[in-house]
């Protein structure tokens, strides 16, 4: 079935940080940011749960200081206060976070995205004024195995049909299967582990983009 293409200024590739940073040096994240191909914009979510707020802020300020490909957006996981303090572009909200609407009341200039794993969460996110949605896991991925079976392509397609918001597909997506997600109506592709091999990062992003430009 042919799905309607969605217009949005957001980049179509979404990089979630590793979650493995132990200090505000943030070596892997900063390395990733420095290696992004110049002409290919990305969304980058800083999601480092091992760090305390002060370290997270320091790391975010360092990340912000890096010149990213034009159109790229730097997002903070959940903490709008840190996003504001570091001058980031937006906030990515897990399902159990405060609603985008509530946070937008004190941080109106940010972009808000929501992780959604169910139709009810999708409706809540839409209602709260989210700018994009993150849906997954689509395929099997080691980092999400503990949460049960992947949701699959069909479910991704259903979700994309249910909303007019851009949906990023997450979970086990590679340049080889990215086109399958796009065919289901995904706006873009998100990943975590696949972007951690910094030796191949630029190449991986270039390969993804072959399937993302529509």
């Amino acid at each position: 079935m042919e799905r309607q293409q969605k217009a949005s200024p957001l980049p179509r590739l979404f990089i979630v940080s590793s979650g493995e940073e132990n200090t505000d040096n943030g070596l892997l994240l900063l390395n990733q940011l420095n290696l992004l191909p110049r002409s290919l914009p990305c969304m980058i979510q800083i999601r480092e749960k091992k760090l305390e707020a002060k370290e997270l802020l320091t790391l975010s300020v360092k990340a912000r200081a890096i010149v990213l490909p034009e159109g790229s957006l730097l997002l903070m996981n959940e903490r709008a206060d840190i996003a504001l303090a570091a001058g980031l572009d937006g906030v990515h909200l897990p399902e159990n976070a405060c609603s985008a609407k509530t946070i937008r009341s004190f941080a109106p200039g940010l972009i808000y995205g929501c992780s959604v794993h169910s139709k009810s969460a999708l409706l809540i996110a839409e209602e709260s004024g989210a700018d994009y949605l993150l849906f997954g896991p689509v395929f099997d991925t080691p980092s999400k195995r503990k949460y049960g079976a992947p949701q699959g392509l069909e479910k991704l397609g259903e979700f994309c049909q249910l909303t007019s918001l851009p949906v990023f597909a997450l979970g086990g997506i590679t340049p080889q299967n990215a086109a399958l997600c796009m065919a289901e109506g995904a706006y873009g592709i998100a990943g975590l582990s696949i972007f951690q091999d910094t030796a191949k990062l630029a190449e991986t992003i270039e390969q993804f983009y072959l399937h993302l430009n529509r």
Partner: protein
Amino acid sequence: MIPSLPFLCVITDETLCPVTLAEKVLEGGAAMIQLRHKTASGSQLFLWAVEIRKRCQQYQALCIINDRVDIALASKVDGVHLGQQDMPAKTARKLLGETCIIGVTASSPEEALQAEQDGANYIGFGHIYPTSSKHKESSPLGLDILQKTATLISLPILAIGGINNDNAASVIAHGASGIAVISAVSRVNNPSKAARELVCAINNRIQ
């Protein structure tokens, strides 16, 4: 406004519902509730903050959120309490504005001075005595260091750590403007009564 008389701050205990605990200790005379829960989700913290704030307003008490400046902004509570590992007070001030209360934890006179320079409104200073609520690697500061710090800075000091009915009055006598407790009111049968007794102790009233 931070109370001018010696006052009681209750920090919520992660083993109890913070709203229930707040209700009980407000009834007992607590003047400040600090919502502190390191593992709760953002939406849960927000809901608790809104509920505690309502109850604090009924008692003209202050509602403060630990660490989460975002939740404080969202729930419009009176302020935040920041540990040394949290967002710096200067940064938080820019986000929260001039009227919001910012408390900062200090464990030495130097940290207390720094917090004052960074624009904090009060200092949480401790731990004064050995405490069971939190695992501590450093030794208790004791009353002498409390007194020394109180003479160095002009901000109100909330003394924390192992404070009970027996030692509360001497903490105030050594320069603290108030006391902050967790287990002294949460791990007892009657939090309201425990709070009331502490309020009496810091005001040198015999119940």
